[in-house]
């Protein structure tokens, strides 16, 4: 790559000559690959010696050196090694996404609203420009509190970059930039491919060990037939060959791992050097090393998949010891970047005050935040205004949205952006208004979640409970993007607890129905794409006219007696073209249930936008027949709108 010397040299000249460093590391890597070939050759010889020795003991071989036998043994051994290597390589060819997802990574959406994630994506784009590689996919491992990152993939085009939550939350911009630049140089220097190949080789050598072990254990049960001296001889030969294979595989595997670690260590220096080339700044990378040293979690990665991938990470994840480290010590890496630095005292490194409790230990993921709930009065939101229009005036909606957002207590909108607190908010909105049942629910949650969390929950419940539903819905909307950041297991647990809380209430009220429906609509699509089929109601399918009747009847019956319901229903259908040109009829109140409603919503979700608009307008008319849109009616309209896939503006304040 051509570099204008004046530009970068000025910045780098004083710290290091990275071209030289790259060249040196590359030369060493070649030597290490040569060692690897030597290791394979010596394995072939030692297997031969073992087999020949066994045959000689059995009397089948006059001389120790027997070219044909050697050719056979060498061929078989190489075949095993190459076969194992090929198998593993094909397995790894699936690319970086498989690796990242295997480690519990979550892809960062390009339109993310989270400032830190936005910053991460920006930095990745910058580094893509600086290094001249395509922009890789970015993953965050939310459950990892350590500071670490990895690059995976076989080609720059299928590469992914993953960072831990600790990395995202604790590092400053320039430090994160250093870490990302380091990973980019792994992509650009072809380290990923080399690493994948080394993993394949090691597996090939380990295959010998496996075959040897199988051979030995299969002979344990074989009994030599009496009087058959020859049979006994064959057994001895097989047994000794098995031992030879096993030993050669074990010893070879050990050295292969040591070599891999050494290759990896060299590559890390090279990547550090290239990272400086990309960012033109050593401070960021050094700062990141210092924070890893000072952070109590260090660079630890807990995912069980991480061990096999340790050489792909940014820093040692605490996985290998005894000279098998895949990364050089932090002090050495800092010294390599800045030869003038003195030994760093990691205890004095200051870390930003970020709440990392709840990351990493799944059982405590909802506990561990301060329980300083607000004692301020909940914002008063005036109820009731007739619905004017549905989604025509954008400016007006924006204004309303802003008013509602302003109306929401700062503390809650902040809480909605926090992974643990957002879950508490959801429960705070769900708890029963009946004090006795509420206590029961809290008790149940206490067993599931811990005390601290329940205290905050009950405080918030008191302040949030009386809020207007428009404000609650706005809070829910704020929570949804945050909840998308939960890990899959956390999400499953949240769902379980939600089901329990709602069931403990003994009756599913409108808001609960709405909340559960809205959560599962937005989140299961996010969590279960391609894995599980979306749960689509209870399997009822309804025609549009029937569905229209169901929804309109629900609206009409809501808060009215039979006379009022009939009046509201008539008001709603008057002047509208009926669906499928059938006369709509009001269903009796006891014929309605949540299954029917879900089926009706599903039917309209498939309908054309114009039909959706019409049914919404009709529902609106039914609700506002008396000229007033109550709190509950507004909620109900939101359920319908959300259920048929229309974003209804918050028209109430």
């Amino acid at each position: 790559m051509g570099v204008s010397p004046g530009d970068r040299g000025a910045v780098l000249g004083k710290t290091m000559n990275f071209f030289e460093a790259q060249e040196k590391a590359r030369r060493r890597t070649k030597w290490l690959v040569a060692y690897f070939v030597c290791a394979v050759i010596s394995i072939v010889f030692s297997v031969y010696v073992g087999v020949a020795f066994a045959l000689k003991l059995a009397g089948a071989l006059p001389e120790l050196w027997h070219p044909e036998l050697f050719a056979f043994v060498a061929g078989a051994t190489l075949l095993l090694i190459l076969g194992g290597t090929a198998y593993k390589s094909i397995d790894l060819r699936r690319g970086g996404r498989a690796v990242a997802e295997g480690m519990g990574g979550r892809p960062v959406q390009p339109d993310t609203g989270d400032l830190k994630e936005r910053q991460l994506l920006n930095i990745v784009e910058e580094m893509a420009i600086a290094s001249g590689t395509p922009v890789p996919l970015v993953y965050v491992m939310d459950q990892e509190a350590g500071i670490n990152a990895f690059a995976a993939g076989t080609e720059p085009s299928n590469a992914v970059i993953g960072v831990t939550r600790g990395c995202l939350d604790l590092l400053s911009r320039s430090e994160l930039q250093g870490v990302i630049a380091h990973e980019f140089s792994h992509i650009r220097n072809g380290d990923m491919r080399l690493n994948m190949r080394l993993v394949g080789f090691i597996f090939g050598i380990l295959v010998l060990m496996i075959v040897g072990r199988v051979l030995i254990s299969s002979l344990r049960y074989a009994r030599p037939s009496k009087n058959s001296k020859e049979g006994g001889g064959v057994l001895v030969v097989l047994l000794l060959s098995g031992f030879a294979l096993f030993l050669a595989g074990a010893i070879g595997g050990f050295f292969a791992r040591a070599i891999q670690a050494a290759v990896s260590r060299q590559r890390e220096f090279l990547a550090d050097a290239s990272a400086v080339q990309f960012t033109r700044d050593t401070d960021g990378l050094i700062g990141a090393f210092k924070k890893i040293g000072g952070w109590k979690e260090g660079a630890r990665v807990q995912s069980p998949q991480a061990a096999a991938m340790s050489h792909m990470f940014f820093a040692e994840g605490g996985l290998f010891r005894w000279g098998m480290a895949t990364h050089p010590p932090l002090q050495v890496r800092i010294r390599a970047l800045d030869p003038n630095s003195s030994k760093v005292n990691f205890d004095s490194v200051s870390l930003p005050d970020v709440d990392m409790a709840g990351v990493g230990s799944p059982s405590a993921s909802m506990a561990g935040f301060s329980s300083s709930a607000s004692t301020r009065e909940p914002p008063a939101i005036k109820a009731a205004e007739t619905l004017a229009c549905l989604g025509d005036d954008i400016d007006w909606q924006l204004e309303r949205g802003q008013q509602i957002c302003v109306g929401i207590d700062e503390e809650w909108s902040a809480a909605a952006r926090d992974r643990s607190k957002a879950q508490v908010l959801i429960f705070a909105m769900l708890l029963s208004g009946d004090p006795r049942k509420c206590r029961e629910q809290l008790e149940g949650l206490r067993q599931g979640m811990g005390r601290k969390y329940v205290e905050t929950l009950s405080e918030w419940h008191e302040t949030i409970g009386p809020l207007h539903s428009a404000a609650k819905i706005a809070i829910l909307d704020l929570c949804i993007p945050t909840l998308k950041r939960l890990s899959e297991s956390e999400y499953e647990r949240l769902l379980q607890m939600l089901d329990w809380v709602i069931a403990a209430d003994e009756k599913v009220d409108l808001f609960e129905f709405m909340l559960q429906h809205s959560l599962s609509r937005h989140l299961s699509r996010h969590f279960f794409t391609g894995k599980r089929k979306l749960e689509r109601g209870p399997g009822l399918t309804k025609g549009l006219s029937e569905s229209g009747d169901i929804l309109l009847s629900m609206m009409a019956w809501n808060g009215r007696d039979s006379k009022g319901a009939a009046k509201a229903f008539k008001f709603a259908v008057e002047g509208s073209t009926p669906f499928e040109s059938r006369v709509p009829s009001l269903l009796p109140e006891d014929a309605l249930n949540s299954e029917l409603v879900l089926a009706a919503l599903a039917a309209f979700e498939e309908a054309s936008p114009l039909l959706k608009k019409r049914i919404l307008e009709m529902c609106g008319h039914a609700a506002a027949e008396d000229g007033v849109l109550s709190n509950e009616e507004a909620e109900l309209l939101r359920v319908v709108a959300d259920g048929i896939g229309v974003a209804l503006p918050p028209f109430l304040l």
Partner: protein
Amino acid sequence: MVLLAFGVLVVFFLLWAIGAYNGLIRLRNMYRNAFAQIDVQLKRRHDLIPNLVETAKSFMKHERETLEAVIQARNAAASARDGLNPDDAAQMQGLMAAEAGLGSMMTKFFALAEAYPDLKSNQNMMQVSEELTTTENKVSFSRQAYNDAATLYNTKIEVVPSNIIAGMFNFKAAVLFEVSSESEREVVKVSFD
């Protein structure tokens, strides 16, 4: 016979000339494309600055003059960028000067902003300044790519024998995009963490 040899020579010369000409065109397009990448980022930067000032306005009431100066520097840079032809040395010098001026104004602005903790912790401000930071970084990284491409092209039109073709068809040297003052590098450093 002599005629035939001469004819062969002429054909070879023509083939070489065509190849060299096409090579120069390819390099020229490469650096122009690299400039387009800078241009995109510069435009984005110019679009972001009014947002930044708008957000800062309500917090920095006593810094009217600075804010106005920032906007002026931004307008100067935006008009220098507008309709710019990267082959025109004078226009490029103008853009570089305007960008340097804008860079030093931004440094001054961020230095002042340090004194307003409310502004620094404002969500909107944090977003805009993050976008601005990444745009600054992208400008400087794509500037490197542009300078590499331009240097490659400049070398090609100066060395023998391609300089003959360059002279015949009037290929002009590309202008390197250098930022004269240290200020632009400094502004990259400002971050809100």
